[in-house]
């Protein structure tokens, strides 16, 4: 990479981070300072937190579009140095889309299974009757997650347009893929920190609040970011990443309806520890994908 190309990539990234963090963190900190509640007394997200997360998730897309306007990179929909919005299903690329919608089901189900194996006492065959208004809902929940994830993917698309569609290609140019995945994942995780501070994902009642939550979020963003980057690079589009992100956010697992949180004991009752365990299958998938990706890249170089 030439010095000019390097300087341009750094400049573009700095503008992107400036715009994205200013927009989203501006909103998040305004919310914190306003004193409004992100979670109610029973640990559920308040209605206003929904709109905060929705608007926040659209900020990376706004960041990417504004940055492209400032740097005069243009707003091409597909091809190289574009918004990566094109959809190409040829050459078996449809498999990436299929993987994108099914992987979250696989890793969340395995994550729930792992929780049950490590803490068998938490398995409660009647718990789903308490959480689901209709028992049958538990069994179609993954399908609902996939359908609503695919159709309501606009917010996830907002994030992916920024992080995978704009940040990662620049990062890969600057640092190479392995380092880019780690640095990009950490930055993506840091972006979530104000939400983590407010209680997103972990609540506020855990050991080492909020720093343990910050670390866990960065961990998730690195491992999930690796899979999302792989899907984006291989398919040439941000759509598979957006679909996987959206479906993943719905936590499409049947087994979670059989885990009674009140019966979880020991270290696993800590929300951050439970979070790490839940994402161990994703970590394994992520490492596996990185190894396969590296092997393919090495073969291509030879």
């Amino acid at each position, binding site marked *: 990479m030439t010095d000019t190309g390097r300087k341009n990539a750094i400049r573009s990234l700095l503008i992107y981070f400036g715009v994205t963090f200013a927009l989203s963190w501006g909103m998040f900190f305004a919310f914190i300072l306003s004193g409004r509640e992100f979670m109610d007394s029973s640990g559920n997200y308040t*209605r206003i937190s929904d709109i905060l997360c929705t608007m926040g998730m659209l900020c990376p897309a706004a960041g990417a579009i504004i940055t492209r306007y400032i740097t005069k990179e243009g707003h091409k*929909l*597909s091809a190289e140095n574009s918004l990566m919005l094109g959809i190409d299903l040829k050459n078996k690329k449809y498999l990436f889309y299929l993987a994108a919608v099914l992987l979250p089901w696989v890793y969340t189900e395995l994550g729930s299974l792992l929780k049950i194996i490590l803490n068998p006492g938490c398995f409660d065959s009647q718990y789903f009757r308490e959480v689901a208004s209709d028992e049958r809902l538990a069994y179609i929940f993954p399908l*609902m997650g996939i359908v609503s994830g695919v*159709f309501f993917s*606009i917010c996830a698309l907002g994030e992916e347009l920024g992080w995978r569609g704009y940040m990662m290609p620049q990062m890969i140019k600057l640092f190479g893929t392995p380092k880019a995945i780690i640095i990009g994942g950490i930055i993506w995780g840091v972006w979530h920190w104000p939400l983590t501070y407010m209680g997103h994902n972990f609540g506020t009642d855990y050991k080492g609040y909020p720093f343990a939550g910050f670390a866990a979020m960065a961990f998730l963003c690195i491992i999930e970011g690796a899979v999302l980057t792989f899907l984006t690079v291989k398919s040439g589009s941000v759509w598979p990443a957006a679909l996987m992100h959206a479906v993943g956010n719905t936590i499409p697992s049947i087994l979670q309806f059989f885990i009674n949180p009140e019966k979880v004991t020991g270290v696993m009752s800590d929300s951050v520890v439970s979070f790490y365990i839940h994402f161990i299958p994703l970590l394994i998938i992520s490492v596996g994908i990185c190894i396969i990706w590296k092997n393919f890249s090495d073969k291509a170089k030879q």
Partner: protein
Amino acid sequence: MGGLLYKDFVAVKAKKVMLVLFALTLLFLALRFMLPGSELSGSNDFTGDMFLWQMPCLLAVAGIGFPNGILIKAIVAGDENNKIKAFTKSLPLGKNTYIASKYIFMGITCYAFMSLEMIWCIIYSCNAGDNSFYDLIQLLMSFIIIFASVSLVVAGIELPFFITLGVKKASTVKAVIMEIVFLLVIAFMFFGDLDKLGGIDLFNFVMNAKEHEFEIDLAMVLSPVFAVLVYYLSYKLTCALNRNREADFND
């Protein structure tokens, strides 16, 4: 393909439409915070909720009506007026690329309206009171995918007519069908059992919907599958109907 989609994007003045919708979304957000909802047990000032709940509902109607009522006609009529259809046939594109571009454009429009509808429902809910209007918007949210599926099915029915017959003939067929439906409604009003309509109550419907959550969610899962299947079959049908029309355009 990208070029054909962009052409349709320009033809329907989508940039202006997007700016207007963006401005309306910001206005709706501002209004929602200026007019907060009231709890059932709190003060009885329902001004905010009564006034604002109609906006997501109107958007839901527009989301079904606008793509099918206006857009299909606009994108096909634009091509006919400028002889673009004949021009694209002369380009080194796949045989069905032109038809596919229309289907993809309509699909993207349905997705965009559905996404906007979801955002408007979230905006409404963020500062809503705990009352029937909030329940109604929650129900609307669970129906968004079903509405989008209906919109896609209607587009799947209209597109073969407009692409194959042209705007003039297709509009006539559409008008005839609409008139038949209208006459049937009138006939029902004169001769049907109107007492059946008397029992319709929106809020009762909301209460009943809560008891049928599983059926609604099942419909939410199955309706997109059905809609996509109909849409795909419609595309195949349009391709088949237009297979031998190439010579007409080159003449």
